[in-house]
């Protein structure tokens, strides 16, 4: 199935806290999992990405955790800041079908 399910739809976190966004997929043909960050009035921008041969990738305060057996992956934002307030999309790439499928998006608000 060409679907990626993302949760929660919206999330409010206090400054300094950890923000966690989850995604799940069914199609085992997906072989690349990027996360995009979108600020109001702007297009999405690539934030961080992972391939299924690793279980974790960290870039600064942003970490992707990947569980291949559960077909789930998540974005963790450590020490969340008000500037992280944005909509986040997970996505999955199917090399065989040559399709990038997006999750539904999570609107993250970091309260100061």
């Amino acid at each position, binding site marked *: 199935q060409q679907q990626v399910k993302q949760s929660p739809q919206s999330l409010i976190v206090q400054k300094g806290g950890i923000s966690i966004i989850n995604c799940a997929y069914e199609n085992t043909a997906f072989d*690349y999992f990027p996360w995009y960050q979108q600020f109001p009035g702007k*297009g999405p921008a*690539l934030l961080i*990405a992972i391939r299924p041969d690793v279980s974790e990738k960290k870039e600064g305060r942003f970490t992707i955790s990947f569980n291949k057996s559960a077909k789930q992956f998540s974005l963790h934002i450590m020490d969340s800041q008000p500037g992280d307030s944005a909509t986040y999309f997970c996505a999955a790439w199917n090399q065989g079908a040559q399709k990038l499928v*997006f999750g539904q998006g999570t609107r993250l608000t970091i309260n100061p």
Partner: protein
Amino acid sequence: NAGVTQTPKFRILKIGQSMTLQCAQDMNHNYMYWYRQDPGMGLKLIYYSVGAGITDKGEVPNGYNVSRSTTEDFPLRLELAAPSQTSVYFCASSYDFGGTGYTFGSGTRLTVV
């Protein structure tokens, strides 16, 4: 700055009118895409192109047309606007076709009344 430029940023159309959403990139990317974004629905692929003269349908192509006469430009045409086409439209481009490094434009917010 290099990137993807979309025009116009906002547009209100009446039912049945036609319009073209413009998209241009200056990164010499072969691959270009049109997405629509609806609240709570993520991004849905409308059409894509793997190079000048080559286009193909995505998930939701009905009611739209595209052309790719040059590497730089990828306009999206709405022939008979319908309220269901009210959405935010994003154009994107990429160097390769592997899902990596899509560069998105800032979007066009279209309302059909």
